[in-house]
């Protein structure tokens, strides 16, 4: 028997959230079709309980389920990012879905199940469980993206679906080649195979495998040139789902990338860092340049999420624990600022009209001061202006890159950041310095207590971790220490 209670300990957080999802479904089964306002809070309760079971995982690395799942500080750190993403998404969704008349139990169940997939992806130490967790997450999100079932939502969902499945094909082929080259797809096993056989690093089969795995992940994190699904999918999906996709999927995918590239492909750093160097540069630059040209804030945020993936990739290129810690920090900061920004977008819209064109924001800063303040804060953070968490995140990643001698990449990164200030500030300028049109587009805000709470929490997160980042950075560094 290859299973013990210690293994169960590693799986407890996942089990708790799965149980919450099952409860949501059972509640729906008990009274089908009836409105159940408590469901998002049931989900949040599940996340809170799971969060209480997680701190035990900090500490030395453990592995369970015959090397399938890790119980290390790295996984625990990412779980906490994901809890934040999940809880904020549920808070944001509540009022939004009720207003759109789509507050169905399925939505909450799928969000929770996607969360389980994300967590498993962060904890998986075998490419088989990485793949299955990735698919669990993705399939749930395909369904969520199409949840409004209008033409735009369905189209977004389909695009995301087809290209997601397409990229899974690449990832899988890569895994198959690695399997052929190494004889196993356990992450530690791959590392051992490369370490024990120097010739393997030059084997075309291993390199092709690494390449295809890179392509597969590049699709998931929306790196250029594998980003073409992103704008349409992000724009067409329900806004709360867009926030979830942009933050949760990114966090889970980068967690898996860190595990695979920093551990399994550790000895191949010279090979993949060059490729990722180019990807990082392209991703940052193209994301920012196209974001500048957008007149729709939701679409602009979609392109900006590509750019952010580019910054994070800079950290991956650096390949040190320091850079990894920076990435973890960045992912958490990005979760707060991005969900916050999308929450503001939701508030501006009304049923059937998203009102996300830039012009709709004219004059809103004075009309709704709290909204203006929050949106400005999130935009500042995204642009990387101190004292926000966005700034610290970029700083940590670029610092790690400089330490590894990636001067040019860092310079491009900083230049890109500077360029991005233009379009983030443009939103703020529109809000405060452009007069509201005679027939106001936004008459009232779609805000409820839950939405306000989510925005305040996100704002506090952005500010708190921007001003006193020390503890969090320590924790992230500890997480990386046990990873490598």
């Amino acid at each position: 028997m290859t299973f013990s209670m210690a293994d169960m300990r590693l799986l407890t957080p996942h089990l708790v959230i799965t149980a919450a999802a099952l409860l949501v479904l059972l509640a729906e089964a008990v009274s089908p079709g009836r409105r159940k306002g408590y469901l998002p809070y049931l989900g949040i309760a599940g996340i809170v309980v799971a969060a209480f079971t997680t701190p035990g995982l900090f500490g030395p690395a453990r592995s369970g389920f015959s090397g399938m799942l890790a119980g290390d500080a790295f996984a625990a750190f990412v779980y906490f990012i994901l809890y934040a993403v999940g809880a904020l998404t549920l808070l944001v969704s509540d009022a939004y879905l009720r207003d759109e008349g789509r507050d169905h139990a399925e939505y909450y169940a799928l969000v929770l199940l996607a969360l389980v997939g994300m967590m498993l992806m962060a904890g998986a130490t075998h490419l088989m469980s990485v793949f299955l967790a990735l698919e669990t997450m993705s399939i749930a999100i395909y369904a969520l993206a199409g949840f409004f079932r209008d033409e735009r939502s369905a189209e977004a969902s389909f695009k995301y679906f087809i290209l997601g499945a397409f990229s899974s094909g690449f990832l899988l082929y890569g895994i198959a080649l690695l399997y052929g080259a190494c004889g196993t797809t356990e992450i530690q096993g791959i590392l051992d195979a490369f370490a024990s056989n120097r010739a393997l690093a030059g084997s075309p089969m291993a390199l092709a495998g690494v390449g295809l795995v890179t392509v597969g992940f590049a699709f998931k994190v929306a790196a250029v040139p594998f980003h073409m699904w992103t704008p349409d999918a992000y724009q067409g999906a329900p806004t709360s789902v867009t926030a979830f996709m942009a933050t949760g999927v990114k966090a889970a995918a980068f967690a898996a990338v860190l595990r695979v590239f920093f551990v399994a492909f550790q000895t191949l750093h010279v090979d993949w860092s060059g490729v990722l160097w180019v990807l990082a540069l392209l991703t940052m630059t193209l994301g920012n340049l196209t974001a500048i040209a957008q007149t729709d804030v939701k679409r602009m945020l979609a392109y900006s999420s590509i750019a952010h993936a580019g910054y994070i990739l800079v950290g991956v290129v650096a390949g040190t624990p320091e850079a990894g810690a920076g990435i973890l920090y960045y992912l958490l900061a990005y979760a707060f600022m991005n969900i916050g920004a999308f929450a503001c977008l939701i508030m501006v819209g009304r049923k059937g009209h998203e009102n996300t064109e830039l012009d709709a924001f004219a004059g809103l800063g004075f009309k709704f001061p709290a909204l203006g303040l929050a949106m400005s804060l999130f935009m500042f953070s995204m642009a990387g202006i101190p004292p926000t968490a966005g700034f610290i995140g970029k700083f940590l990643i670029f610092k790690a890159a400089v330490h590894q001698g990636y001067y040019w990449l860092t310079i491009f990164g900083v230049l890109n950041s500077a360029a991005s200030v233009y379009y983030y500030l443009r939103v703020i300028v529109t809000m405060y310095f452009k007069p509201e049109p005679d027939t106001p587009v936004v008459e009232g805000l779609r805000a409820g207590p839950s939405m306000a709470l989510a925005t305040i929490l996100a704002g506090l997160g952005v500010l708190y971790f921007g001003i006193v980042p020390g503890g969090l950075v320590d924790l992230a560094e500890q997480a990386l220490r046990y990873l490598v």
Partner: protein
Amino acid sequence: MIPFEYSMGLSAVLFGLGVVGVLVRRNVIVLLMCVELMLNAVNLAFVTVADHLNSVEGLLYVFFVMTVAAAEAAVGLAIVVCLYRARRAVHADEISLLKG
């Protein structure tokens, strides 16, 4: 025993056909089938490696890939149904992937 290169070569060709299909065709259901073709090619690669390495892991991969393909097909076709219902137009079954 089938030589390793033959099966892997076949797998590569089928994968390539699937890739061409996803990039070239526009009918939503055909796109879905092309993705299935790619997954089949991957399965062949796994089976080949498993056979030549005498390792069971590849076979289990195939098992799970089929599970994933089934779940994907269920949700994918649900999306297609949704798309049809939302559009009700002549070109309801077409989509352009490489735009944007």
